[in-house]
């Protein structure tokens, strides 16, 4: 683990020495997020979002534990207990809005983190397992977010539970019994609400566990970087602390300010007003849509309207699951040896087309279904699968990448040979680029 020049943990205080011989926890932290973890010196700001995702996970766990002290998981009491939190509990409105918007911001930073990985080829060898563990975290986040959305037992909560468990009824033979089993009844009711609450409380801790595996797997090869070129020597890296703790720190403060602005000034911007109506099992709201972070998948689900061998409904559900599961195979679909999109002129174009495609899917997922919306989401769905299954393998085969810098430190110095080895460049701390 880590590079040979990584600084060793050397406790100075007698107590820390005593501790290190018995439980080397400070040693673990020092090697993971301290001065003992060398990080490529050329990371750009897209590399800040992993730490931010960790911060939002902690915010969600903290605010969630407090909300659970006031929330009743009963179909008669849930909605009113949420209103009680909003109106009567001291600072309850703040904690609930922080939790609801915290979920949205958790997804925002996670999506940026995922797209950064897609652009810079972070999923490629030797980081395949880092990528796959990240996808497991993402799937767990989706399950957790969905179940959390059901808990207030408003109209959108109830119909989200009905529609999403309805996905399972698409499978032949076992589908309907499976749906009834998952709900604990024929329609969402007390059994559903209580089990969702239990799992919603459990899953964040499972996520935290998988995050540890994700970071562990990352720290074997070390972080990737915008050039995609492997770290060669000490000149290419900086210790995580104080360099990246400082960079992550100020950026996190800035990003949390944005989160605070939304939480205080537009707390319902990303929600649906219908969820302030108590759940009514006999009346579906006129237009139901999931939370914004699920919209692209909802568009894929809705884009299958014609039976072809299998029923359209089953196609929609299979395509929706496949759209995420195929990402597990990405390291083997994109075989280009060049990691970074910055050196892949054709890949780069198609990456941005994919981004536009995902934006179109997001729009189509939220739009009222009509012939035009369905047609648009069909084309966008087709392109999504085409990108990963056809275009990426073809680009990897036929693209001529741009010449790579011979090292990270050379790229930092824009390849000027005279500057790549200035006197005193062994000094640590970004001084290479700015000295003299």
């Amino acid at each position: 683990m880590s590079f040979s020049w990584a600084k060793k943990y050397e406790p100075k205080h007698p107590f820390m020495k005593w501790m290190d011989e018995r439980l080397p926890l400070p040693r673990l932290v020092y090697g993971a997020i301290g001065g003992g973890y060398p990080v490529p010196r050329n990371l750009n700001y897209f590399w800040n979002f992993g730490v931010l995702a960790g911060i939002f996970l902690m915010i969600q766990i903290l605010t969630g534990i407090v909300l659970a002290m006031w929330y009743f998981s009963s179909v008669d009491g849930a909605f009113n207990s949420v209103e009680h939190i909003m109106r009567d509990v001291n600072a309850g409105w703040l904690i609930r809005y922080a939790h609801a918007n915290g979920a949205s911001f958790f997804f925002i930073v996670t999506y940026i983190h995922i797209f950064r990985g897609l652009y810079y080829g972070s999923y490629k060898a030797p980081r395949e397992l880092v990528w796959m563990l990240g996808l497991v975290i993402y799937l767990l986040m989706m399950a957790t977010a969905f179940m959390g959305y059901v808990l207030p037992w408003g109209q959108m909560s109830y119909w989200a539970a009905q529609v999403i468990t309805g996905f399972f009824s698409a499978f032949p033979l076992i589908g309907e019994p499976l749906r009834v089993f998952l709900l604990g009844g024929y329609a969402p009711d007390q059994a559903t609400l209580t089990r969702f609450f239990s799992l919603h409380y459990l899953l964040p801790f499972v996520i935290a566990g998988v995050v540890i595996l994700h970071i562990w797997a990352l720290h074997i090869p070390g972080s990737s970087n915008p050039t995609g070129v492997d770290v060669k020597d000490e000149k290419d890296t900086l210790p995580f602390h104080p360099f990246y703790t400082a960079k992550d720190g100020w950026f996190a403060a800035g990003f949390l300010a944005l989160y605070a602005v939304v939480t205080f000034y537009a707390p319902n911007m990303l929600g649906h007003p219908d969820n302030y109506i108590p759940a009514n099992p006999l009346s579906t709201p006129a237009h139901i849509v999931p939370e914004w972070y699920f919209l692209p998948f909802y568009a894929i689900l809705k884009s299958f309207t014609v039976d072809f061998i299998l029923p359209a409904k089953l196609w929609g559900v299979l395509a929706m699951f496949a759209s995420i599961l195929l990402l597990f195979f990405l390291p083997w679909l994109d075989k280009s040896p060049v990691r970074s999109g910055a050196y892949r002129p054709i890949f780069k174009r198609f990456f941005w087309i994919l981004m536009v495609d995902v934006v179109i899917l997001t729009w189509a997922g939220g739009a009222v279904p009509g012939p035009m919306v369905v047609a648009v989401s069909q084309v966008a769905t087709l392109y999504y699968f085409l990108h990963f299954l056809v275009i990426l393998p073809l680009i990897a085969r036929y693209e001529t990448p741009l010449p790579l810098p011979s090292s990270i430190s050379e790229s930092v110095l824009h390849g000027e040979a005279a500057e790549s080895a200035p006197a005193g460049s062994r000094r640590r701390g970004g001084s290479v680029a700015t000295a003299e």
Partner: protein
Amino acid sequence: MATQAQSAEGSQHTGANGDGVRRRDFLNVAAVSFAGVGTVAALAPLVVQMAPPADVLALSTTEVDISKIQPGQAIKAVWRKQPVFIRNLTPAEIKSANAVAMGDLRDPQSLAQRTKPGKANWLITLGVCTHLGCVPLGVGEGENRGPFGGYFCPCHGSAYDTAGRIRSGPAPLNLTVPEYSFLSPTTVQIG
């Protein structure tokens, strides 16, 4: 040493190459199998508790008074916490349902197959769209009944005809006809 043990227990030799099964291997397999079966048995209650409990199953029949429903009107009843649509079809609606060719249907069923003999005007279906379970519109006065005059699901645009059969949109099947019987001309028991 293992070889000596095997020759001492000659009956446990297997295979021509002398890779014998030792008494200890048998004990390992037996112990792990026993523990495995025991663990599965212990986990079973944790899984079966997920299924609908007795009180939910106990709500499996509902009686509904249908005397006040005029032709052309419909009501929503509740059965197993799910909405049930009870509709008194007009002669025109029955005629339009019977006029549809079976070949045009995604899930071919005639109106007669979906109603009780002699009660063709009473269309009783679950009010649960067979796509993803939303409640279709079309029961209340003035609600959108969709292009086929039956029910219309607002979630993903599935349209049902006057016999509650799927005609367009993503839903795969007709609205489910639950088990029911007429206890009297004005009372039905659902379930």
